[in-house]
């Protein structure tokens, strides 16, 4: 089970209403390499991963949900004062006619989230390599969003999230070594 904490993992400040930037951030909300995909991927893989690395998948999945909340907070704050005219200029007219200012699990191009974005192969090496790749893709996406953003307050939070992807990737690489060592030992018996 999970217990909710009424705080973000890291503060999210935005400088101005900026629906264009919110549209880009939807890539990390409902996109293929976004936070929802990450959380669901690790949470689902943990049941069949070797015992020694269950904790890591569990704890990174939990952190991904807190990142999903940070991305949602960014999108919410960047769009909450936007007029329909501003949303149209940002390319969010189609979003507006379906959702008003509600958030939705779309990518930046408006494509809805699908479980086909994530994998669960049951083979620990295949799954952990998928996880490393997912973290590196998310890190790259954060960098491209930072490159497109001119909001210094928001960029501070985005840099934090980018750094977290690096940590997760490194931990997953350690998990690969743990799984390999464990397999090697079993062969002896």
């Amino acid at each position, binding site marked *: 089970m999970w*217990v*909710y*904490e*009424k*705080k*973000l*993992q*890291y*503060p*999210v400040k935005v400088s101005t209403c900026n629906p264009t930037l919110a549209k880009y951030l939807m890539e990390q909300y409902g996109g293929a390499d976004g936070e929802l995909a990450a959380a669901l991927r690790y949470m689902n893989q943990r049941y069949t991963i070797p015992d020694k*690395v269950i*904790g*890591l998948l569990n*704890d*990174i999945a939990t*952190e991904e949900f807190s990142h999903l*909340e940070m991305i*949602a*907070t960014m999108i*919410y*704050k960047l769009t909450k004062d936007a007029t329909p005219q501003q949303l149209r200029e940002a390319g969010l007219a189609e979003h507006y006619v379906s959702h008003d200012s509600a958030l939705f699990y779309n990518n930046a191009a408006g494509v809805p989230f699908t479980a086909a974005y994530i994998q669960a192969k049951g083979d620990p090496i295949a799954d952990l390599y998928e996880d490393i790749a997912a973290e590196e893709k998310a890190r790259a996406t954060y960098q491209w969003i930072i490159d497109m953003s001119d909001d210094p307050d928001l960029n501070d939070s985005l840099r934090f999230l980018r750094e977290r992807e690096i*940590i*997760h990737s490194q*931990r997953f690489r*350690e*998990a690969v070594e*743990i799984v390999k060592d464990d397999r090697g030992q079993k062969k002896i018996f």
Partner: protein
Amino acid sequence: MANPLPKEYYKQLEEIQAADFVVHELILYLDTHPTDQQALSQYNQFAQYSKQLKRAFEAQFGPLQQGSPNPSSSVWTWNSTPWPWQV
């Protein structure tokens, strides 16, 4: 949210976020380095510190966690604003 939040709210919240970040980083590290004595002792130290900060914050600004005591005997405060995306 009727009233703007006092500066003290943000200051204390950021202290908690910083302490919990240390705790979380150590959790992930210990998941792959479970016998690192220094990390274990740092983890216990910061877990304790985070609890202290949260107790002080909750006494002043209301519950942060599900399961924390309700500070009023007449009204349920968990459901009160601000929620994290409103601060």
